[in-house]
């Protein structure tokens, strides 16, 4: 399996705050879903921004094989343009890349159908529920068929039922093109459910504190949340997290 993106001894330091991340190593292979878990301020989102190319490391190296436009990010908030309807929001990455409006809107419509929002194509963000807005955000990320998909706590503002539905939807959509995915969260169960590999980070500065491989098929089979594999994985991640928190104190 070839590496899609990697951080090699990457460090990020901010003036006045010192080193917030690193040295940090992470390699993402094609079609892999990795979850980054850790306490607030452990540099999860910083690592994500490095991978996206939205921030440069102070030291170390970032490699990325996808070209511009083949990396997509979903932020904690849906981050939609409030003045534009769902279709226009989803078409944005395509239009910014120079695609003709009609074609971009057709593809956006398909992407919205794929996330189950064919009836909300003309709706503005204010007319959507939190879960629907997040789906629009997801459709916008997937419309370019990215090879690297970065999800920065996308479920943070959603209720439990919406989270679970969206988690299964992400797996289903991932299965169509199999991009490499980094999923940032501070929820242990969510990490164990979403990812094949859970990387736990400790803070000050952000480093890897442990790693759990979850040997179960993706998308998850029905009943996975009550299975032994899931329970064991969640326990392992919890243990790593406790260790990571211990480092903080």
């Amino acid at each position, binding site marked *: 399996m070839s590496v899609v993106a990697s951080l090699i001894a990457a460090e990020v330091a901010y003036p006045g705050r010192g080193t917030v991340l690193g040295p940090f190593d992470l390699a993402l292979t094609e079609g892999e879903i990795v979850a980054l878990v850790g306490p607030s301020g452990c540099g999860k989102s910083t690592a994500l921004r490095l991978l996206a190319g*939205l921030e440069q490391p102070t030291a170390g190296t970032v490699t990325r094989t996808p070209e511009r*436009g083949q*990396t997509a990010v979903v932020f904690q908030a849906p*981050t939609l*343009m*409030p*003045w534009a309807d769902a279709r226009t929001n989803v078409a*944005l990455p395509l239009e*910014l890349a120079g695609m003709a409006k009609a074609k971009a809107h057709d593809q956006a419509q398909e992407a919205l159908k794929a996330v189950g929002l064919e009836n909300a194509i003309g709706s503005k963000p*204010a007319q959507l529920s939190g879960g629907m807005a997040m789906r629009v955000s997801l459709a916008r990320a997937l419309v370019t068929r990215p090879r690297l998909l970065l999800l920065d706590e996308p479920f943070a503002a959603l209720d439990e039922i919406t989270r679970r539905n969206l988690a299964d939807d992400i797996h289903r959509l991932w299965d169509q093109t199999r991009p490499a995915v980094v999923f940032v969260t501070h929820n242990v169960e969510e990490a164990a459910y979403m990812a094949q590999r859970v990387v736990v980070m400790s803070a000050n500065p952000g480093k890897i504190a442990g790693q759990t491989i979850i040997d179960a098929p993706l998308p998850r089979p029905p009943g996975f949340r009550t299975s032994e594999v899931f329970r064991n994985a969640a326990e392992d991640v919890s243990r790593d997290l406790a260790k990571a928190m211990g480092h903080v104190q």
Partner: protein
Amino acid sequence: MSRTLETLAPILLVAVLLGLWEAACRLTGVPAYFLPAPSAVAAAMAQDWALLLGSAWKTLSTALLALAFASLTACSLALIISTNRLLEKAVQPLAVALQVTPVVAIAPQVVIWAGLAHPDRAIISLAVIVAFFPIFSGALTGLKSTDPDLERLFDLYGATPWQRLLRLRIPSATPFVLEGHKVAGGLAVIGAVVAEFVAGSGGSQGLAWRILESSNRLQTAKTFAAVIVLSLMGALLHAVLQASEQAILRRFRGR
């Protein structure tokens, strides 16, 4: 409390106050040049309505023209300045200094510059100066108040500066610009009236001239009539601007 009563309450209050005022004038026999009774003001309005409406239109059209001109210059300047941080830093103190200078203080000089034969030019210029700042600062704030995550998204997809301006910054600024226009509309009327006062000649036949003329002649009822027309006109303009702002925002946000 019923809705009808809530709507009626302010009308009732005005009616009661007018009644008290009328009664006080009749009972005390205060001279009409000092305080005319509401009935006398109403009579003055009925008698001079054509003249008052003409003057109101003169002042309103001046204010609207000034608003349009201020809108054009303020938005363009804010756009240019927002693209360059150094330029913005350079312009800001100057803008603040001009903004806090009362329009009456610069009005006499502007009247001289415009030429004593052209009070209209001075009046429009002064109204533009007053209406300029709310739109300018609204537009500048709006252009800079984009969602940082949306900015990152535009970074991620390699947006050109032009795409960023047209698809992100200008739409983000829209609510701020609308609010600026609402404030500027009221100020444009004030600016026009102040400028008419300073120009102080019959060359401008606006409402301020009606007020000056009648108060110089101690025709206080006519003064009151002109002031009432002026405030009604200001309220009407504000209501129209507010309604348009809300209608545009509703369309803009989809609710």
